[in-house]
């Protein structure tokens, strides 16, 4: 039983990294724009399909394919922000942004269904089936690479946010949107940039998701529910928080599957959020909401 639990923990950590990568864009966008991007699940699936197309039709390795998919997704993100999010008026912004991004998710899902139908696909590569054998554990290469990618991209994101001017303006907008505008930061540009970066990072998440799961356009629902739980659990706006939350929630889910029953594992995943929110209504690392500006 002990090794089973240990395996579950290791598996949970690795999967948690992947989910954290998928959630990173969501957290970043929320932190800067205070909107919940419900389309994130659909965007992950779009990233998965992009990598899939590159791999199947052009035989480009998914990791290398990121060189193409990330800029494409960046442009997609900027387009979405410019086209729909920017036009939202400030009143009822929270509610409207949820509805708008949900609508975008539906449209994306519809487009994907039309192009690819609902057949399950998966991304294939040499590392998908093989595992690394160490200390009695079998660690699937794809998860290891995925975790490495997640760590790499999150590190790159950190460097971008904390070491570059653009990143600084984004952080300024997170801390005080009005104040940032007053000192001359172009909030429109920052918002577009944030959305673009958030969606570009999601390309990586989508690729790993596609390599580790079979997916079709309907996968976005289950995905977005889990991503939302992760970012709220971690505390809205905290990328580090969402990483810890992702690992924690997935470890608990995997351990539950081993210790109790696989049937209840998913329910526990959501239940963790409820339990934490009872104790800490703002998530693990969230700040108390300031009065509405």
């Amino acid at each position, binding site marked *: 039983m002990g090794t089973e639990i240990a395996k579950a923990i290791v598996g949970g950590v690795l999967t948690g990294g992947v989910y954290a990568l998928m959630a990173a864009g969501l957290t970043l966008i929320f932190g800067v724009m205070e909107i919940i991007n419900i389309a994130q699940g659909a965007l992950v699936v779009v990233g998965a399909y992009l990598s899939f197309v590159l791999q199947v039709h052009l035989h480009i390795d998914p990791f290398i394919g990121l060189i193409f998919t990330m800029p494409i997704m960046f442009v997609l993100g900027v387009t979405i922000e410019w086209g729909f999010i920017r036009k939202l008026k400030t009143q009822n912004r929270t509610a409207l942004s949820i509805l708008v991004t949900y609508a975008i998710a539906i449209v994306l899902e*519809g487009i994907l269904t039309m192009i690819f139908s609902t057949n399950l696909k998966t991304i294939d590569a040499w590392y998908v089936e093989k595992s690394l054998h160490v200390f009695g554990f079998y660690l699937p290469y794809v998860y290891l690479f995925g975790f490495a990618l997640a760590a790499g991209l999150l590190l790159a994101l950190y460097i971008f946010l904390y070491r570059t001017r653009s990143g600084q303006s984004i952080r300024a907008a997170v801390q005080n949107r009005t104040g940032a505008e007053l000192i001359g930061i172009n909030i429109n540009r920052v918002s577009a940039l944030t959305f673009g970066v958030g969606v570009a990072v999601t390309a990586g998440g989508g690729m790993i998701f596609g390599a580790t799961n079979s997916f079709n356009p309907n996968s976005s629902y289950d995905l977005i529910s889990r991503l939302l739980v992760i970012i709220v659990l971690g505390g809205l706006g905290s990328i580090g928080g969402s990483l810890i939350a992702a690992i924690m929630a997935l470890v608990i889910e995997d351990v539950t599957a081993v210790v109790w029953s696989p049937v209840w594992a998913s329910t526990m995943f959501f239940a963790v959020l409820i339990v934490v929110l009872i104790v800490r209504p703002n998530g693990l690392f969230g700040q108390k909401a300031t009065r509405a500006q």
Partner: protein
Amino acid sequence: MSLQETADPLAKPIYANLRRSVTVVALIAAIAFPFVFSNPAVTSIAMFTLLYLGAASTWNMFCGFTGYMALGNAVFYGSGAYFFANLTTHLNLNGGVGLFALVPLAGIFAGLVALPVGWIALRTRRHTFVVITIAMFFIFQLLAYNLTALTNGSAGMQVPSPIWGAKTYNTYFYLASLVVALIAIGLAWLVRRSSFGLELLAIRDDEDRAVGLGVHTTKIKLLTFVLTGAVTGMCGAVYAYYLGSVYPPFAFEAIFDVTIALMAFLGGLGTVTGPIIGALLIEPAQQWLTLKFTNGGIALIMFGALFLIVIRYMPEGIVTSLAQLIRKRMRMKAPALADAQQGASS
């Protein structure tokens, strides 16, 4: 006068007679509808419209007035449906008009479910609240799949079939849905007119200030949430009876929440008539789209595009936008008169 008249221009006293007569005419038309249009396809769409109308009105009663976006009301819809199925199955009842008497019981059950759900969720604000309601929805859907002792899992539960024949099948359900919808609208209207409603609106405008002014925000938020849950549960029970069976993905349907939210938004958040208009427009459109476009992709794209257009061009909703238009017209036509009325009502 009072605050409640500023948002809804039709609430002004000079329009009282117009309002009353329109309401009476609408009521008579609604009751007569299934007898005039007896085509089952039409009455079935009408019935769903009424159910969604009720659910949207009661959703608006909580979310529109308090400003908290709850996207998990399907929890109560499904709870009401499963309670109804459980009760009728375990009591071995036969289908008949009498079973409709159990619908309020399902409502009470759903309201009881809303107590812990609301207590947990309402400890949070704004975005966290939205996510926790979504999480609750998924938990309940998973519970429906896994608590097989209560719900029979994915095999679903059966509800006794009604005794009336196929010809008049829809009529009874239509009338039952009408009753539930009227309860929802009536409740929303009563709340809107009362000081209770004013307190809810205060929460929407500035909750901290409301607390400072002595409003018992926690209690009234929870109370409204429970009422909303109860009415939504009744909608679910009628739905269960109509379908004849209850399955997890239909009782707890993800798109339900967003649909009623869209209806309320389209019509006008925070108004009483808003969700009615929203439901009347959207539900038939949704049914028509699903019938017309069997290829799932196109239907999704069109529905999503519809969403986006509505939100982009009418973020205030039809009723509120119309209200602003009317007010502008009045101001242009007779400035003195309009100003006097504005002055009297503020």
